[in-house]
């Protein structure tokens, strides 16, 4: 895929049923290149291939071929291994004779030449070049097929001595030397560019730069005045003298942006995908659970620049820390973010297994960049991750207290200092009131005894039982019970009978000490009401009664024959030797962010790179294993990983390092030569353009219109949603009351995340359901996106409110107003042809609404926010269309 040649042979009409002959269709691995080849009638081999390198490197050239085509049967999984041949370990492969030509000079590859003259002697070479079905490898029924280039690579590799390397991501990252005064990103990108003979694009213009920075780090458009300030501080763009000034202005801008509290929100969006944060449990009834304080904890952690190692440890083991606090406990809600069920008939063992596997997949995805899921049933086919590693990782979480089936508990109260003080005050008041009330209770009891004896002695009829009584049936029933009970001697009464009489007497009969008793009731009620509305969060609590974890044969939870597994770190990576005690989640967390683990820093930096450039350095974000991709610029990913660890896991430092690099600041437009040389922009001779994320599409519209409520954090909110969208939910059935007031205008990341029915407007822009960890969202371009931006009341209202701003904040001619609107939305002046289009549109709509006042009124009624009465309705309606068109532009939802 990387080495796509620039020129395609020109082909015209090819009947669609003839694109691929049945013979070549044996393999239908759907990859872009194959597709391109399919579409243009080019054989895959030709379209995909670049020259075979002279010097073969195992990790770059050979491993991907072996992993994709051979390891499934000749790899790490012993149970599935064929012909006892293992090709992922050199010694084993040599023993088998598969690499025969390489054997004599195993120790000295450079001495290979004489013997390697006949690579045909090698088992592998003979088989991959064979066209006999019973000899050929991979076998025809595997539907795997090697290209001519791949065969040549394997042949040459064996000729050169079949040198193996450990898989790149399991080696410790190597930190390249960077010349003093240079940005590591630039130095390492430039190294590659000069190796490849590529020239970097020019620097992006300043408007693009500030929009890019705001999008990547804050997820909001800069206001027109912020752009002005930045341009002013940057000085004259054309003067060389001002280059330093411009640079200083940019660095100052970066500083301001990193201090902006929206930074945490922007960073949180991706992390919340990775840890599958959602407001509901996921399965079946998909009921709510209390977790939003965790979301706010994530935002705050990024804003406070909590070191990433600590950030990780609090999530996995915040309850086990010696300095545990409310904050670390909220972080530990991470362990509770999995899917759970309340379905009747669900079996605990089944869901215990589901929850264990869910957690292992999450740790693998979020920190290790490893696809652990396969090892639930068998040793991993491509990576050295064994089924035992899988269950040993799962066993770390066997101590977490939780209902396996059923409703989640309300969780821990998460109170601010003020709230804690208020609660303490209410507690004190309650204690005080209780003391006073308790003091008078004996007197009440005395009175009760007197009343009881009177009742019996005088045969008094209770008011509820009078002939003309209007009491309710339950009240009558209680009164009858009281009459019967008081006839019994105290010692013959059951406890609940005593309570019935006491309650009746205190509530219905006596007025004695009423104020003390009322004071207590009031204090109790107040305290309860206050407590009920305090935020709560399900968090981790460690139980000494750990669940027993067994290795489940083929992942079958009904099979209890597997051995019992204790917590353990992945066997293929270095780790601490701990003896005399069982490992805990804290050990796991500390190991994940230790120097022993080569994966975490690389995984996190790869994801950050994607945020800043549109694609990871290794393009497969969720798999740094054998089936992922070795980054073309491994030195850069390694440098970032090392710098991240060396800086004390300082996330903002890494963000700053990246965004202040020249590489980040390049223009994203590419000419034909650049496209030809590096079609996928893997070498970063330029920046990339991409559509902004779902939440940001919303945020931009609200920000531009002025509707955005910019406060940080709080319970999840319910923006407008089509009626009936939740109609297929049940147990219970649910209404969706849209939030009123400022809650309606919160940023997208605060949207109520209903896993089984994610908000449709976010879903259309590829927001994930967050049922599984998601390192990477689709980035689609589909008609539903147009329907949302055109018709969702959120966007219609935003356009209407934006229009009202244009009319009230910018007096002047229509042209001047359009120009002002352009500055607000796109931070640039409209071009002449754009002005003309908008003027024409405005006139047409204005004419229509002048004739049809009712329609104007209907349009202006959309959304909860009122329209200013002072404005002419036809005019406002027509300008709403202008604003609407602006918000719908490709440029408005694209980061360049």
């Amino acid at each position, binding site marked *: *895929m990387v080495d*796509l040649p620039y020129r395609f042979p020109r082909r*015209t009409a090819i009947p*669609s049923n003839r*694109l691929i002959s049945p013979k070549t*269709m044996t393999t*239908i691995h*759907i*990859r*872009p290149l194959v597709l*391109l080849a399919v*579409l*243009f009638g080019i054989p895959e081999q030709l379209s995909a291939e670049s020259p075979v390198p002279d010097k073969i490197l195992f990790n770059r050239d050979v491993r991907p071929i072996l992993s994709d085509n051979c390891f499934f049967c000749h790899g790490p999984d012993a149970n599935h291994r064929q012909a006892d041949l293992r090709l992922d370990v050199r010694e084993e492969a040599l023993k088998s004779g598969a690499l025969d030509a390489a054997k004599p000079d195993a120790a000295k590859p450079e001495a290979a030449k004489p013997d390697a003259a006949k690579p045909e002697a090698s088992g592998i070479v003979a088989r991959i070049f064979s066209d006999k079905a019973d000899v050929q490898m991979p076998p025809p029924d595997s*539907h795997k097929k090697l290209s001519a280039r791949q065969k040549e690579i394997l042949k040459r590799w064996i000729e050169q001595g079949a040198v193996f390397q450990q898989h790149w991501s399991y080696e410790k990252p190597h930190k390249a030397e960077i010349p003093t005064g240079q940005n590591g990103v630039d130095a390492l990108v430039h190294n590659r560019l000069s190796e490849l003979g590529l020239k970097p694009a020019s620097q992006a213009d300043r408007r693009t730069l500030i929009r890019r920075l705001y999008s990547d780090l804050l997820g909001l458009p800069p206001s027109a005045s912020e752009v002005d300030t930045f341009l002013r501080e940057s000085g004259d763009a054309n003067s060389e003298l001002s280059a330093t000034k411009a640079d200083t202005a940019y660095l100052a801008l970066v500083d301001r942006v990193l201090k902006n509290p929206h930074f945490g929100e922007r960073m949180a969006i991706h992390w919340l995908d990775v840890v599958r944060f959602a407001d509901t449990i996921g*399965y079946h*009834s*998909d009921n709510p659970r209390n977790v939003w304080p965790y979301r706010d904890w994530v935002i705050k952690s990024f804003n406070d620049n909590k070191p990433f190692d600590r950030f990780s440890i609090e999530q996995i083991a915040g309850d086990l820390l010696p300095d545990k606090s409310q904050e670390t406990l909220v972080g530990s809600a991470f362990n509770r973010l999995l899917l759970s*069920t309340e379905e009747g*008939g*669900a079996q605990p063992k089944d869901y215990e297994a589901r929850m264990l596997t869910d957690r292992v997949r999450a740790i693998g995805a979020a920190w290790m960049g490893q*696809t652990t*899921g396969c090892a639930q049933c068998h040793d991993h086919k491509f990576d050295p991750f064994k089924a035992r590693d899988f269950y040993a990782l799962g066993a770390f979480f066997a101590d977490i207290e939780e209902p396996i089936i059923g409703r989640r508990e309300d969780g821990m109260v998460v109170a601010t200092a003020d709230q804690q003080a208020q609660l303490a005050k209410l507690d004190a008041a309650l204690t005080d009131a209780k003391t006073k009330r308790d003091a008078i209770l004996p007197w009440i009891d005395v009175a009760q005894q007197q009343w009881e004896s009177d009742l019996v002695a005088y045969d008094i009829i209770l008011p509820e039982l009078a002939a003309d009584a209007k009491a309710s049936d339950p009240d009558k029933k209680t009164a009858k019970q009281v009459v019967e009970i008081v006839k019994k001697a105290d010692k013959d009464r059951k406890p609940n009978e005593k309570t019935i009489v006491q309650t009746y007497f205190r509530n219905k009969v006596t007025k004695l000490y009423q104020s003390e008793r009322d004071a207590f009731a009031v204090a109790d009620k107040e305290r309860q009401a206050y407590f009920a509305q305090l935020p709560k969060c399900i968090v981790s609590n460690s139980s000494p009664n750990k669940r027993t974890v067994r290795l489940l044969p083929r992942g079958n939870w009904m099979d209890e024959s597997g051995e019992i597994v204790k917590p353990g770190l992945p066997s293929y990576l270095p780790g601490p030797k701990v003896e005399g005690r069982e490992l805990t989640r804290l050990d796991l967390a500390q190991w994940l962010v230790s120097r022993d683990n080569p994966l975490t820093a690389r995984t996190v930096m790869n994801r950050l790179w994607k945020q800043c450039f549109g*694609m990871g350095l290794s*393009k*497969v974000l969720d798999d740094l294993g054998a*089936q*992922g991709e070795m980054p073309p610029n491994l030195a850069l990913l390694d440098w970032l990983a090392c710098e991240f660890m060396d800086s004390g896991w300082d996330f903002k430092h890494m963000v700053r390092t990246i965004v202040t690099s020249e590489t980040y600041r390049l223009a994203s*437009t590419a000419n*034909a030569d650049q*496209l030809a040389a*590096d*079609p996928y922009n893997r070498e970063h001779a330029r920046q990339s353009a991409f559509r902004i994320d779902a939440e940001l599409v919303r945020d931009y519209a609200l920000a531009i219109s002025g509707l955005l409520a910019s406060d940080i954090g709080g319970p999840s909110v319910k923006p407008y949603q*089509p009626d009936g969208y939740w109609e*297929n939910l*049940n*147990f219970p059935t649910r209404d969706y009351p849209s939030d009123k007031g400022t809650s309606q205008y919160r940023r997208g990341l605060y949207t109520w995340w209903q896993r*089984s029915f994610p908000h*449709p407007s976010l879903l259309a822009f590829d927001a994930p*359901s967050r049922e*599984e960890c998601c390192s*990477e969202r*689709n*980035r689609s*371009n589909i008609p*539903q996106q*147009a329907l949302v931006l*055109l*018709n*969702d009341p959120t966007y*219609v209202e935003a356009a209407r409110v934006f229009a009202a701003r244009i009319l009230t904040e910018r007096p002047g001619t229509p042209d001047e107003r359009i120009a002002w609107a352009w500055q607000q939305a796109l931070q640039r002046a409209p071009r002449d042809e754009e002005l003309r*289009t908008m003027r024409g549109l405005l006139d047409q*709509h204005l004419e*229509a609404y002048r004739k049809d006042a009712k*329609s104007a009124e209907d349009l202006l009624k*959309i959304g909860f926010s009122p329209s200013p009465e002072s404005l002419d309705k036809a005019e406002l309606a027509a300008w709403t269309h202008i604003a609407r*068109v602006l918000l*719908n532009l*490709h*440029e408005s939802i*694209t980061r360049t």
Partner: protein
Amino acid sequence: MVTSIGSNMDVENVAENRRKFLGRSSQGLGTVALASMLGPSVLNGADVGNSLGAASLPQKAKRVIWLSMAGGPSQFETFDYKPKLAKMSGEPMPESFTKGQQLAQLQGQQLLCLGPQFPFSRFGTCQTEISTLFPYIGSMADDICLIRSMTTEAINHDPAHMFMNTGSQIAGRPSMGAWVTYGLGRVAENLPGFVVLVSTGKGRSPQPIAARQWSSGFLPSRHQGVQLRSHGDSVLYLGNPSGITRDQQDLDVRAINELNRFQDSQEHDPEIATRIAQYEMAFQMQASVPELMDIRNEKKKTLELYGCQAGDGSFASNCLLARRLAERGVRFIQLYHRDWDHHSLLKQELPLRAAEVDRACAGLIHDLKDKGMLDDTLIVWTGEFGRTPMSQGDKGPIGRDHHNKSMSMWLAGAGVRGGQVYGATDELGYAAVENVCTVHDLHATMLHQLGIQHDSFSVKFQGLDAKLTGVEHANVLHDILV
């Protein structure tokens, strides 16, 4: 299809754009980009966006209509008559059947046999035994292939639906409709390739259905099932905002596209061309979907054939809509009819569900046959699991619990051999014993009829060649095919 590219853009230009876009595409998949790149102006009118190129096997089915009886209908009251079970009704279930087996709500309860609650009768020249609750479906017995030996892995609704739709119990996998439109592309202009309709039985509190059941999972989002709703906007956000006429919407869409074209001339970003095409398609959908949904112009005879009235939101209406969708080239049409979860009130409620679907299912087969479309339309009727031969009495009047060792389902059309019964359960209907088949087999067979070789139809996901039919071996059920 390449002609249509040629007519819109220079072929090489497209190639260049495509590469540029692929460079940005986040997924290893890259087809996201491709789909996106091609855009509807290219997609329309031909089988494009097609990930197989040409189908690798002869294609018998051009489309699928999948009738999902959500909740899990009992096979004992529908398609699998068990005289021995009738005889033993009320007696303890022999332990030899149930020991060590997975049970849902019956865990720890006394297990008693429950005989069939309704009589069966023989239908058609094939003399297939079907419950008398389904006289209409019975009348089509010679057209359908009944499978009595289906099994599944899951025993709770949500995972069982997931397994039936995606071949996996882990959330986040693509639904079969998404796989199929991904593999074969789309024919319909201005309509999605995968459409979902949901109806609910009248009466009780039905099991929920999650949108993930029609998710595109890790496949490009445009293959996601689009739900057509019977009230409100038939497609979410389809209707113009109030106060905006179609003409005004047209003006805005044109202005947007014109401005985007200006931008394209500045930036040469292929995503812009796609965006323009998507706005055109959205605008067209705003007319084509309401036209599709409006069944008032259908003949009275047709409405009677299905047993529906315009706008009633019933399963029968959805069956008629399914035919209309099929006519317009929609690839995969999935209907859910909720409320088959009869833990209790089996005798009271099941006949109501049967009446709600019986005539409509038969009407659909009949109608497609009349229009010559049954030959290339595959109809599938199934629940997400079966039910126990044991009674459940703890939820009120008697019912049956969830069951995964045996279930009945049927297929019709598109090269499926009609008038056939495939497979059998043991004498008490506890487990499938003859020609036992799995959900993966069903998927493999359906793909086979669609012209797709299931074990070579894969997408790279998390390092695996992920397939609809999973990692275990799946068999095409050749015996049920013509």
